[in-house]
């Protein structure tokens, strides 16, 4: 049995949970049942949403003490649920929250944890989890050892959310019987805040229009904004644009900004320094426009256009506005 831990906040499911489910379904193949658990308080909508997937059960870990996330609270709750369902694998999306508590959970259970997994492979009859090393230059196949369960977190964008098999009917929803000792919750979180005012979470965007040095001047950002609007996309940028203050830092893609994997990534005048590529190469479809045919961005692009981005943008905006 495989247990997937979904993630929600204020009754809204994190999209990456579907990716963890897709990974679990691939690992399970036919035959192995999958259960999905979600922790928090007031979970009926999220649980119902998850019940659409082809899983044998949705477990709502509902407790007022889990309403606000704390690593101690979550570790306590999940430890009990894992003990009661005794899965072979526990799978998570590699979100910030997972990163925060999964190592503690694994240590508490004294079980192996494989993080940031990008693929699941069968290596000589052994299940191995591929994970990047050396900033993505090498990929290691890791076969966890020791008793079950093995904990696995999957990289965001590595598995396709829309690949999740839906069930013929909604899966049954149960509530986990757990007790949380509030005295052993050492963290007292304050109200969450975002450091920047209009912070955007680009990792949740389905389409992104991203601009680089090729945009040339601050005035031309307006063109990119129009293009993004026409596509119904979020606007993002490579580092020099944010360094210049032409777009706020929270819209920067790459190793010092956000990592994204949208369905469509349009790269407008970005040469493709490796720091940028690591932030977007997991995108489903990459369309790159650049004047320089030798630009490294073309090595990761599905569609490459050597040409003038302004000429193309004008034509695209006109065409998209027609439809």
């Amino acid at each position: 049995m495989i247990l997937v831990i979904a993630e929600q906040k204020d009754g809204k499911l994190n999209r990456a949970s579907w990716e963890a489910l897709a990974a679990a379904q691939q690992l399970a193949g036919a035959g192995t049942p999958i259960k999905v658990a979600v922790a928090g308080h007031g979970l009926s909508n999220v649980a119902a949403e998850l019940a659409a997937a082809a899983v044998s059960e949705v477990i709502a870990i509902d407790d007022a003490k889990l309403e606000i996330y704390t690593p101690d609270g979550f570790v306590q709750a999940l430890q009990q649920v894992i003990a009661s369902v005794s899965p072979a694998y526990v799978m998570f999306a590699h979100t910030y929250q997972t990163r925060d508590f999964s190592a503690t959970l694994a240590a508490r259970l004294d079980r192996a944890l494989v993080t940031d997994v990008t693929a699941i492979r069968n290596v000589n009859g052994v299940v191995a989890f591929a994970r990047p090393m050396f900033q993505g230059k090498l990929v290691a196949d890791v076969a966890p050892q020791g008793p079950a369960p093995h904990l696995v977190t999957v990289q965001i964008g590595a598995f396709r959310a829309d690949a999740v098999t839906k069930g013929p009917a909604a899966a049954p929803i149960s509530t986990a019987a757990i007790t949380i000792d509030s005295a052993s919750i050492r963290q007292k979180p304050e109200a969450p805040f975002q450091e920047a005012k209009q912070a955007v979470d680009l990792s949740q965007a389905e389409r992104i229009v991203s601009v680089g040095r090729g945009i040339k001047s601050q005035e031309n950002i307006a063109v990119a904004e129009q293009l993004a609007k026409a596509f119904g996309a979020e606007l993002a940028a490579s580092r020099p644009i944010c360094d210049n203050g032409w777009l706020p830092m929270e819209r920067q893609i790459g190793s010092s900004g956000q990592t994204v994997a949208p369905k469509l990534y349009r790269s407008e005048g970005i040469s493709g320094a490796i720091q940028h590529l690591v932030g977007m190469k997991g995108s489903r479809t990459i369309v790159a426009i650049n004047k320089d045919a030798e630009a490294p961005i073309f090595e990761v692009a599905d569609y490459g256009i050597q040409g003038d981005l302004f000429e193309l943008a004008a034509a695209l905006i006109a065409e998209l506005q027609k439809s």
Partner: protein
Amino acid sequence: MSREVLDVDVLIVGGGPSGLSAALRLTQLQKQKGGEPLSIAVVEKAREAGAHSLSGALLDPSTLRDLIPDFQAKGAPLAAEVHEDNIYFLTPTHKFRFPITPPPFKNHGNYIIALNQFTKWLAAQVEAEGIDLFMGFAAQHVLYEGTRVIGVRLGDRGLGKDGKPKAAFEPGADIHAKVTIFADGVRGHLTKQLIGALHLDARSQPGQFAIGIKELWEIPKGRLKPGTVIHTLGYPLKEEEFGGTWLYAMPDDRISIGLVAGLDYKDPLFDPHAAFQHFKLHPFIKGILEGGHLMRYGAKALPEGGWNTQPQLFFDGGLIVGDAANFVNSMRLKGIHLAMRSGMLAGETAFDAVRAGDTSSAFLARYKMQVDESAIRTELYPVRNVHQAFGAGLIAGTAFAGLTMATGGRLMEDLPGHAGHTRMRTLAHYYGLEKRDILTGSNAAPFDRKITFDKVTGAHYSGTHHEEDQPVHLLVQTDVCHSVCGDEFGYPCVRFCPANVYEMVDNGAGGKRLQINASNCVHCKTCDIMDPYGVITWVPPEGGEGPQYDGM
């Protein structure tokens, strides 16, 4: 604002080979002599031990044998014993093998190591003795009481770009110590403060340095036998430029490859990183690398000036060890064993001083006496003029080095030494008055992204990371960048920085503006050393940041 204060007997600033050796020696003396245990702390700016350690590296195991006699049983990570030495002179297309290996280049009995792993192992030995290693804490300032050093102040965390506290602001703690051992590495930023404040260079030559640029590669199976050592002289450096290259073969088809270029070059348009790319494109080297791939990149300055550039090593409340004291033998290309030796000796003096209740300069001078009686002097004094002689070029320098070997350095006057950055010529002096493209190096190299890579890609492979929203940690407190530097030197910072930290971008008014990409920094200190006006000061960013030199 209140700062935490921690009191210890001995504080060691820097968790590299010298600092860790000092810590280990202190615990050994503790065991031998018993009595009230000393409290000892080590602070290190890297997030984990060895993360900022970069070297070739060849290890002379002599000090290791003295410090940890059972180092083999304790699993010291010595990648391969050297079994073959090769030296070549390169021209742009050919190689000429030296018929004999000159004695300083003989490495029989030495080991090829990854200094990163070696340092990590050494740190584990220190931790096993119960010493607290404060990893990820950068010492920012020296604390004084009059002219007495009483400890250091750690850097604040959580300051924004504008220098104002962010939500998670945490003031750095003060660590007070009876003796502070400064092991802050090549061009240590605290040692630099000390030299200025206490005039520790009154009787020494200015420090002289080189930059080492290194890559770790995995090459096709079986191409080089582990333990093979290759050094080259000549191309891609000019006759007037000090330096050379290395290539060391380790197990599992990994190689360490790099170039050292003296930070006393004259050509203002020279780019050390470009020279390294040309080296990799040389048919001899390309033949080794082709089909392999780059795993890691890094750069670090190294002391070259030798014995006569050591600052005064002791003062009230403190000692200087290792690379910070310039203890490198530039002729043998080795310094790790000297760093460790100086750390051991400093540990011994610090122990005695704390026990004697006298940590004055007069007592701590014993450390200098011990250095003078140790292998450090025996090894460094005879070759004290060699790097200085290379100031007259490769041929003169080599001839002088040969003469030094023949005479053991006797009967020679000390040659004068100059700070390397003062040797850089202006564009007009070096190239005459003809107009040049000053934003392209004189030795610009192509980037094929297979063998050669640009600096931005290199910065990525260094694993370096810095929070963007913090004060810039490279202080350029002048306007020469925008006024005279372009005309005089053609913005050399753009070229000598190996990580694209310095960039001249359009200022929107037809001129150029200096942009500092501080988050690319690999903590090599080259800019602090080589900028011709001497106006760049490297200070540590938030603790725990910087490169991640796994396997380097």
